[in-house]
Protein backbone atom coordinates (compact mmCIF):
# COMPACT_ATOMS: atom_id res chain seq x y z
CA UNK A 1 0.00 0.00 0.00
CA UNK A 2 1.25 3.47 -0.83
CA UNK A 3 2.28 5.64 2.08
CA UNK A 4 2.40 8.85 0.02
CA UNK A 5 0.43 11.70 1.59
CA UNK A 6 -2.51 12.83 -0.50
CA UNK A 7 -4.54 15.98 -0.39
CA UNK A 8 -8.30 15.59 -0.23
CA UNK A 9 -10.74 18.45 -0.52
CA UNK A 10 -13.26 18.90 2.30
CA UNK A 11 -14.67 22.45 2.23
CA UNK A 12 -16.76 22.48 5.39
CA UNK A 13 -17.69 25.38 7.61
CA UNK A 14 -16.40 24.64 11.13
CA UNK A 15 -19.49 26.24 12.70
CA UNK A 16 -21.87 24.49 10.31
CA UNK A 17 -23.76 22.75 13.12
CA UNK A 18 -24.39 26.09 14.85
CA UNK A 19 -25.41 27.75 11.59
CA UNK A 20 -27.91 25.01 10.74
CA UNK A 21 -29.63 25.41 14.13
CA UNK A 22 -29.52 29.23 13.83
CA UNK A 23 -31.18 29.09 10.42
CA UNK A 24 -33.93 26.82 11.78
CA UNK A 25 -34.50 29.20 14.71
CA UNK A 26 -34.71 32.21 12.40
CA UNK A 27 -37.35 30.41 10.36
CA UNK A 28 -39.32 29.53 13.52
CA UNK A 29 -39.23 33.18 14.62
CA UNK A 30 -40.42 34.28 11.20
CA UNK A 31 -43.28 31.78 11.11
CA UNK A 32 -44.44 32.85 14.57
CA UNK A 33 -44.10 36.57 13.80
CA UNK A 34 -41.61 37.10 16.64
CA UNK A 35 -38.88 39.71 16.40
CA UNK A 36 -35.78 38.15 18.01
CA UNK A 37 -33.18 40.63 19.21
CA UNK A 38 -29.87 39.76 20.84
CA UNK A 39 -27.72 42.04 23.01
CA UNK A 40 -23.94 41.85 23.12
CA UNK A 41 -21.55 44.03 25.08
CA UNK A 42 -18.65 43.99 27.49
CA UNK A 43 -19.44 43.12 31.13
CA UNK A 44 -20.88 46.05 33.03
CA UNK A 45 -22.15 48.09 30.09
CA UNK A 46 -25.71 48.06 31.40
CA UNK A 47 -27.20 45.19 29.36
CA UNK A 48 -29.41 43.90 32.15
CA UNK A 49 -30.71 47.35 33.20
CA UNK A 50 -31.41 48.13 29.55
CA UNK A 51 -33.18 44.81 29.08
CA UNK A 52 -35.20 45.30 32.25
CA UNK A 53 -36.33 48.73 31.01
CA UNK A 54 -37.18 47.30 27.57
CA UNK A 55 -39.25 44.47 29.05
CA UNK A 56 -41.03 46.70 31.54
CA UNK A 57 -42.04 49.26 28.93
CA UNK A 58 -43.02 46.77 26.23
CA UNK A 59 -44.77 44.29 28.50
CA UNK A 60 -48.14 46.04 28.92
CA UNK A 61 -48.73 46.45 25.19
CA UNK A 62 -46.74 43.59 23.61
CA UNK A 63 -46.00 39.97 24.43
CA UNK A 64 -42.33 39.83 25.38
CA UNK A 65 -39.93 37.25 26.79
CA UNK A 66 -36.20 37.07 27.41
CA UNK A 67 -33.35 34.58 27.58
CA UNK A 68 -30.31 35.69 29.52
CA UNK A 69 -26.90 34.09 29.24
CA UNK A 70 -24.56 34.16 32.19
CA UNK A 71 -21.49 32.21 33.21
CA UNK A 72 -22.58 31.26 36.69
CA UNK A 73 -25.35 33.17 38.43
CA UNK A 74 -29.11 33.33 38.12
CA UNK A 75 -29.40 36.81 39.63
CA UNK A 76 -30.10 38.48 36.28
CA UNK A 77 -33.21 36.37 35.69
CA UNK A 78 -34.47 37.17 39.19
CA UNK A 79 -33.94 40.87 38.56
CA UNK A 80 -35.64 40.72 35.16
CA UNK A 81 -38.62 38.78 36.55
CA UNK A 82 -39.70 42.06 38.17
CA UNK A 83 -40.80 43.18 34.70
CA UNK A 84 -43.49 40.39 34.81
CA UNK A 85 -42.27 39.08 31.45
CA UNK A 86 -41.27 35.40 31.16
CA UNK A 87 -37.50 35.14 31.60
CA UNK A 88 -35.19 32.14 31.44
CA UNK A 89 -31.55 32.04 32.44
CA UNK A 90 -29.04 30.14 30.34
CA UNK A 91 -26.07 29.22 32.51
CA UNK A 92 -23.16 28.65 30.17
CA UNK A 93 -20.70 27.38 32.78
CA UNK A 94 -17.24 28.00 31.39
CA UNK A 95 -18.45 28.86 27.91
CA UNK A 96 -17.89 32.54 27.15
CA UNK A 97 -20.70 32.99 24.61
CA UNK A 98 -24.16 31.70 23.69
CA UNK A 99 -24.56 29.18 20.87
CA UNK A 100 -27.67 28.53 18.78
CA UNK A 101 -28.26 25.14 20.44
CA UNK A 102 -28.41 26.79 23.88
CA UNK A 103 -31.10 29.16 22.62
CA UNK A 104 -32.98 26.27 21.05
CA UNK A 105 -32.92 24.26 24.29
CA UNK A 106 -33.94 27.25 26.40
CA UNK A 107 -37.00 27.80 24.21
CA UNK A 108 -38.33 24.36 25.14
CA UNK A 109 -41.79 24.70 26.62
CA UNK A 110 -42.42 28.18 25.22
CA UNK A 111 -44.91 28.66 22.40
CA UNK A 112 -43.40 31.27 20.09
CA UNK A 113 -46.86 32.02 18.73
CA UNK A 114 -47.61 33.62 22.09
CA UNK A 115 -44.82 36.18 21.62
CA UNK A 116 -44.19 39.43 19.77
CA UNK A 117 -40.62 40.02 20.94
CA UNK A 118 -37.90 37.69 22.17
CA UNK A 119 -34.78 39.25 23.67
CA UNK A 120 -31.57 37.26 24.05
CA UNK A 121 -28.90 38.69 26.32
CA UNK A 122 -25.51 37.23 25.48
CA UNK A 123 -22.71 36.69 28.00
CA UNK A 124 -20.79 39.92 28.63
CA UNK A 125 -17.96 39.56 26.12
CA UNK A 126 -17.04 41.55 23.01
CA UNK A 127 -14.94 38.86 21.36
CA UNK A 128 -16.37 35.34 21.29
CA UNK A 129 -20.08 36.02 20.61
CA UNK A 130 -19.21 37.52 17.21
CA UNK A 131 -18.63 34.10 15.63
CA UNK A 132 -21.98 32.57 16.61
CA UNK A 133 -25.24 33.19 14.80
CA UNK A 134 -28.14 32.71 17.24
CA UNK A 135 -30.88 33.01 14.63
CA UNK A 136 -31.72 36.52 15.84
CA UNK A 137 -33.27 39.07 13.49
CA UNK A 138 -31.26 41.92 14.95
CA UNK A 139 -28.06 42.05 16.97
CA UNK A 140 -27.61 45.08 19.20
CA UNK A 141 -24.15 45.97 20.43
CA UNK A 142 -24.13 48.09 23.58
CA UNK A 143 -21.51 50.67 24.41
CA UNK A 144 -21.75 52.59 27.67
CA UNK A 145 -20.49 56.16 27.89
CA UNK A 146 -18.15 55.13 30.71
CA UNK A 147 -16.25 52.69 28.47
CA UNK A 148 -14.73 55.25 26.13
CA UNK A 149 -15.40 56.28 22.56
CA UNK A 150 -12.84 53.93 21.02
CA UNK A 151 -14.60 50.64 21.86
CA UNK A 152 -15.72 50.12 18.23
CA UNK A 153 -12.13 50.44 17.01
CA UNK A 154 -10.87 48.03 19.66
CA UNK A 155 -13.53 45.41 18.87
CA UNK A 156 -14.31 45.97 15.18
CA UNK A 157 -15.39 42.37 14.57
CA UNK A 158 -18.31 42.39 16.99
CA UNK A 159 -19.38 45.89 15.96
CA UNK A 160 -19.26 44.81 12.34
CA UNK A 161 -21.38 41.75 13.09
CA UNK A 162 -24.09 43.84 14.79
CA UNK A 163 -27.04 45.67 13.22
CA UNK A 164 -27.63 48.44 15.73
CA UNK A 165 -25.39 50.21 18.26
CA UNK A 166 -26.87 51.40 21.57
CA UNK A 167 -24.98 53.98 23.59
CA UNK A 168 -26.08 53.36 27.20
CA UNK A 169 -25.86 55.31 30.47
CA UNK A 170 -26.27 58.64 28.65
CA UNK A 171 -27.09 60.24 32.03
CA UNK A 172 -23.39 59.86 32.91
CA UNK A 173 -22.08 61.32 29.64
CA UNK A 174 -21.21 64.76 30.98
CA UNK A 175 -19.55 63.39 34.12
CA UNK A 176 -17.15 61.23 32.10
CA UNK A 177 -16.73 63.80 29.28
CA UNK A 178 -18.04 61.34 26.72
CA UNK A 179 -17.29 62.50 23.18
CA UNK A 180 -20.45 61.42 21.38
CA UNK A 181 -19.36 62.61 17.95
CA UNK A 182 -16.17 60.54 18.19
CA UNK A 183 -18.11 57.46 19.31
CA UNK A 184 -20.52 57.79 16.39
CA UNK A 185 -17.62 58.31 13.99
CA UNK A 186 -15.94 55.16 15.27
CA UNK A 187 -19.13 53.13 14.92
CA UNK A 188 -19.51 54.32 11.33
CA UNK A 189 -15.86 53.48 10.58
CA UNK A 190 -16.32 49.81 11.44
CA UNK A 191 -19.91 49.46 10.23
CA UNK A 192 -20.94 52.19 7.78
CA UNK A 193 -24.63 53.02 7.94
CA UNK A 194 -25.25 51.40 11.31
CA UNK A 195 -28.19 52.82 13.24
CA UNK A 196 -27.17 54.29 16.63
CA UNK A 197 -29.41 55.04 19.63
CA UNK A 198 -28.21 56.95 22.68
CA UNK A 199 -30.24 56.39 25.80
CA UNK A 200 -30.41 56.03 29.55
CA UNK A 201 -32.29 53.18 31.19
CA UNK A 202 -32.21 55.25 34.37
CA UNK A 203 -33.70 58.55 33.22
CA UNK A 204 -35.54 57.24 30.17
CA UNK A 205 -33.74 59.60 27.80
CA UNK A 206 -33.84 58.29 24.22
CA UNK A 207 -35.97 55.28 25.12
CA UNK A 208 -39.05 56.41 23.15
CA UNK A 209 -37.20 56.53 19.82
CA UNK A 210 -35.67 53.15 20.49
CA UNK A 211 -39.04 51.53 21.34
CA UNK A 212 -40.54 53.03 18.22
CA UNK A 213 -37.73 51.49 16.18
CA UNK A 214 -38.40 48.05 17.75
CA UNK A 215 -42.14 48.22 17.07
CA UNK A 216 -41.49 49.36 13.52
CA UNK A 217 -39.07 46.48 12.88
CA UNK A 218 -41.53 43.97 14.26
CA UNK A 219 -44.30 45.18 11.98
CA UNK A 220 -41.92 44.86 9.05
CA UNK A 221 -40.77 41.36 9.96
CA UNK A 222 -44.12 39.76 10.82
CA UNK A 223 -45.59 37.77 7.98
CA UNK A 224 -49.05 38.69 6.71
CA UNK A 225 -51.84 36.83 8.50
CA UNK A 226 -52.50 34.75 5.39
CA UNK A 227 -48.95 33.39 5.48
CA UNK A 228 -49.28 32.08 9.04
CA UNK A 229 -50.02 28.44 9.49
Amino acid sequence: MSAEPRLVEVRKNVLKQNDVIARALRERFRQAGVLAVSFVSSPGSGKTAFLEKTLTLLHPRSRVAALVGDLATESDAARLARSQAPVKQIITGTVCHLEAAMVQNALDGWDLNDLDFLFIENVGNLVCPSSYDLGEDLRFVLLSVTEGEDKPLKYPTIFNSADVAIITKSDLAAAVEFDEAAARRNVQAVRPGMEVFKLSAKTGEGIAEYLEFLEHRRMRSSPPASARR
Partner: protein
Amino acid sequence: MHELSIAMSIVEMAQEEAESRGTVQVQAVHLRLGRLSGVVKEALLSSYEMACHATPLEGSRLLIEEIPVEVFCPKCEGPRLVTSIQWFCCPECGTPTPTVLRGKELEVVALDLKALETAE
Protein backbone atom coordinates in the same frame (compact mmCIF):
# COMPACT_ATOMS: atom_id res chain seq x y z
CA MET B 1 -11.43 32.60 24.43
CA HIS B 2 -13.53 30.28 22.30
CA GLU B 3 -10.65 29.03 20.16
CA LEU B 4 -10.37 25.77 22.10
CA SER B 5 -13.95 24.74 21.37
CA ILE B 6 -13.42 25.71 17.72
CA ALA B 7 -10.18 23.69 17.61
CA MET B 8 -12.06 20.70 19.03
CA SER B 9 -14.69 21.03 16.30
CA ILE B 10 -11.94 21.11 13.68
CA VAL B 11 -10.32 17.96 15.09
CA GLU B 12 -13.68 16.19 15.24
CA MET B 13 -14.54 17.22 11.69
CA ALA B 14 -11.14 16.11 10.35
CA GLN B 15 -11.38 12.80 12.15
CA GLU B 16 -14.83 12.07 10.72
CA GLU B 17 -13.67 12.95 7.22
CA ALA B 18 -10.58 10.76 7.58
CA GLU B 19 -12.54 7.80 8.90
CA SER B 20 -14.87 7.92 5.92
CA ARG B 21 -11.82 7.46 3.70
CA GLY B 22 -10.49 4.22 5.11
CA THR B 23 -7.37 3.48 7.12
CA VAL B 24 -5.67 6.82 6.93
CA GLN B 25 -3.86 9.21 9.19
CA VAL B 26 -4.38 12.98 9.09
CA GLN B 27 -1.06 14.74 8.66
CA ALA B 28 -2.37 18.25 8.20
CA VAL B 29 -5.61 20.20 8.19
CA HIS B 30 -5.91 23.14 5.81
CA LEU B 31 -8.08 25.89 7.22
CA ARG B 32 -9.30 29.14 5.71
CA LEU B 33 -9.61 31.82 8.37
CA GLY B 34 -11.15 35.22 7.65
CA ARG B 35 -9.88 38.32 9.44
CA LEU B 36 -13.50 38.99 10.48
CA SER B 37 -14.22 35.45 11.71
CA GLY B 38 -13.74 36.45 15.33
CA VAL B 39 -11.07 33.78 15.75
CA VAL B 40 -7.44 34.62 16.54
CA LYS B 41 -4.89 32.65 14.52
CA GLU B 42 -2.26 32.30 17.26
CA ALA B 43 -4.80 31.25 19.88
CA LEU B 44 -6.27 28.73 17.46
CA LEU B 45 -2.87 27.21 16.68
CA SER B 46 -2.03 26.61 20.34
CA SER B 47 -5.56 25.36 21.04
CA TYR B 48 -5.27 22.95 18.13
CA GLU B 49 -2.31 21.22 19.69
CA MET B 50 -4.29 20.76 22.92
CA ALA B 51 -7.38 19.58 21.04
CA CYS B 52 -5.32 16.93 19.18
CA HIS B 53 -3.84 15.51 22.36
CA ALA B 54 -4.74 11.80 22.81
CA THR B 55 -6.69 11.69 19.54
CA PRO B 56 -5.71 10.04 16.22
CA LEU B 57 -4.76 13.54 15.05
CA GLU B 58 -2.00 13.95 17.62
CA GLY B 59 1.09 15.31 15.86
CA SER B 60 -0.86 16.66 12.89
CA ARG B 61 -0.46 20.24 11.74
CA LEU B 62 -2.98 23.02 11.28
CA LEU B 63 -2.17 25.07 8.19
CA ILE B 64 -4.00 28.38 8.22
CA GLU B 65 -4.61 30.54 5.20
CA GLU B 66 -5.69 33.98 6.37
CA ILE B 67 -8.35 35.63 4.24
CA PRO B 68 -8.33 39.42 4.03
CA VAL B 69 -11.53 41.43 4.24
CA GLU B 70 -12.99 42.23 0.86
CA VAL B 71 -15.87 44.68 0.51
CA PHE B 72 -18.01 45.80 -2.39
CA CYS B 73 -17.52 49.43 -3.30
CA PRO B 74 -20.82 50.89 -4.53
CA LYS B 75 -19.03 53.75 -6.29
CA CYS B 76 -16.31 51.76 -8.11
CA GLU B 77 -18.86 48.94 -8.50
CA GLY B 78 -16.30 46.29 -7.68
CA PRO B 79 -14.66 44.24 -4.95
CA ARG B 80 -11.93 45.99 -2.94
CA LEU B 81 -9.67 44.84 -0.09
CA VAL B 82 -9.97 47.03 3.00
CA THR B 83 -6.65 48.21 4.41
CA SER B 84 -7.84 47.96 8.03
CA ILE B 85 -10.79 46.32 9.76
CA GLN B 86 -11.18 49.59 11.67
CA TRP B 87 -12.02 51.43 8.49
CA PHE B 88 -14.66 49.95 6.17
CA CYS B 89 -13.98 52.13 3.17
CA CYS B 90 -12.96 51.62 -0.42
CA PRO B 91 -9.14 52.01 -0.42
CA GLU B 92 -9.31 53.71 -3.81
CA CYS B 93 -12.15 56.22 -3.62
CA GLY B 94 -12.78 56.36 0.14
CA THR B 95 -16.49 55.48 -0.10
CA PRO B 96 -17.73 53.80 3.12
CA THR B 97 -19.32 50.41 2.55
CA PRO B 98 -20.83 47.82 4.90
CA THR B 99 -21.03 45.09 2.23
CA VAL B 100 -18.54 42.37 3.15
CA LEU B 101 -17.80 39.89 0.36
CA ARG B 102 -15.03 37.87 2.02
CA GLY B 103 -13.29 37.70 5.38
CA LYS B 104 -15.70 35.80 7.63
CA GLU B 105 -14.48 32.31 6.62
CA LEU B 106 -13.86 29.60 9.18
CA GLU B 107 -13.64 26.63 6.92
CA VAL B 108 -11.78 23.33 6.69
CA VAL B 109 -10.80 23.23 3.02
CA ALA B 110 -8.64 20.10 2.76
CA LEU B 111 -6.77 17.37 4.59
CA ASP B 112 -3.36 15.83 4.00
CA LEU B 113 -3.93 12.11 4.48
CA LYS B 114 -1.42 9.31 4.65
CA ALA B 115 -2.44 5.71 4.19
CA LEU B 116 -1.54 3.59 7.19
CA GLU B 117 0.43 0.39 6.66
CA THR B 118 -1.97 -2.41 7.40
CA ALA B 119 -0.79 -5.72 8.87
CA GLU B 120 -0.55 -8.43 6.23
